[in-house]
């Protein structure tokens, strides 16, 4: 099946319907493996079992950021090619990205209580994640308030692109702020500094989270397409009524 076929919403829905069960199965399987490995992973000598929060926290953080990247790419599709599927992809990604960002914030807060002694500090990383959540909320607000879905997607696409410019600034700008949160240790120059006994379960969980994201995203895209069809049908019905009437 060529890419061009996928771009057709009907074909896309057919594909999603076929792929989705498999995707769900693989995701569940990976989560099972990941959680099992997580349980076996050694506790931290300082933090004890609370370190297990990390296996939720870190992948959620990554995906929260990745979702914005996907939205930006979709935004280009919307603005440059006016492609309906790009609209749908962007719209579907926003709440999921927001949810992951939110999970990152909540797990981080819960983790912060035992380790830092407080739920919240105005630390660089934390704050930039919170700003990311706010940006997500802004985009979602645009989708909610737009009465015409097409117009809403185009507006949201513009905001996604502008926000994409802003995002790295927020993330890096606060690096020199006094920081409680630890720096990157998985992806960094000169290789990872984490022991494999932690790293491997973490990576498995990260893949599981990514698959979860893909699953949710595809399902949300399908639902959105169907919702738009219903809307169009309603409008057409109203129009026919109006024409038949006169």
């Amino acid at each position, binding site marked *: 099946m060529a890419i061009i076929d996928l771009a057709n919403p009907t074909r896309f829905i057919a594909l999603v319907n076929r792929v989705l069960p498999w995707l769900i199965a693989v995701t569940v399987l990976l989560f099972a493996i990941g959680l099992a490995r997580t349980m076996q992973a050694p506790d931290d000598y300082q933090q004890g079992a609370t370190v297990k929060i990390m296996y939720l926290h870190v992948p959620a953080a990554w995906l929260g950021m990745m979702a914005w990247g996907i939205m930006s790419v979709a935004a280009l599709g919307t603005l440059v090619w006016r492609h309906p599927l790009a609209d749908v992809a962007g719209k579907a990604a926003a709440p999921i990205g927001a949810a992951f960002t939110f999970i990152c914030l909540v797990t981080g807060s819960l983790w912060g209580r035992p380790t830092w002694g407080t739920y919240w500090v105005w630390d660089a990383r934390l704050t930039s994640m919170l700003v990311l959540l706010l940006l997500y909320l802004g985009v979602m607000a645009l989708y909610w308030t737009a*009465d015409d879905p097409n117009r809403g997607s185009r507006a949201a696409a513009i905001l996604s692109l502008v926000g994409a410019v802003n995002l790295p600034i927020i993330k890096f700008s606060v690096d020199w702020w006094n920081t409680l949160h630890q720096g990157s240790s998985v992806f960094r120059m000169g290789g990872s500094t984490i022991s494999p006994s932690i790293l491997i379960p973490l990576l498995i969980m990260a893949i599981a989270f990514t698959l979860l994201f893909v699953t949710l995203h595809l399902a949300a895209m399908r639902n959105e397409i169907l919702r738009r069809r219903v809307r169009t049908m309603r409008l057409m019905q*109203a129009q026919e*009524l*109006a024409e038949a*009437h*006169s």
Partner: protein
Amino acid sequence: MQLIGDNLRCVRGGREVFADLNFRVASGEAMVVTGRNGAGKSSLLRVIAGLVHLTGGQLSLDGGIPEASVAEQAHYLGHQDALKPSLSVAENLQFWAEFLRIEGSIEIIPALQAVDLQPLADLPAAYLSAGQRRRLSIARLVAIKRPIWLLDEPTSALDVASQGRLAKLMRAHIAGGGMIIAATHGPIGLDNPRELQMGPQ
């Protein structure tokens, strides 16, 4: 019931718009206000509706509900349509009916039918064309009964069929003992209305 304007004078923005204006309209009558642009037709209607301050003279209503002001017994159809784009056609009408009603029931559907907007009832008002907006405005006059109609160029933006429907509504209103004062630059389909010519010429 009789609406009497006696020696009316109106000053807007520091300039006199009209003075020494006299008229008298009784129930079952229509009065057409004519005159060139800027003669003061709209100002007169707004004065009667209580929306512009009357600088001099006396405006009085004989009969009608004594404790209510003229404004409360009048419908005003101005250049603006008083519609909210984000509310649907039916919601817009429903709101004004609920707000303006003094007593009696509200008849949304028949009012929409009277201006042929019923098929669009659930459309947001933002999507209406100029004439459709105007018709929705007119539906307000039908939905709530008020004896005095103040119409400022009511036919503007209406297509031929709607002009006919409006004329029918106006005739029915008059036949029912109502009163119409309409400002216009052309014929609006009333039979033998009184005429009030404003300004020079």
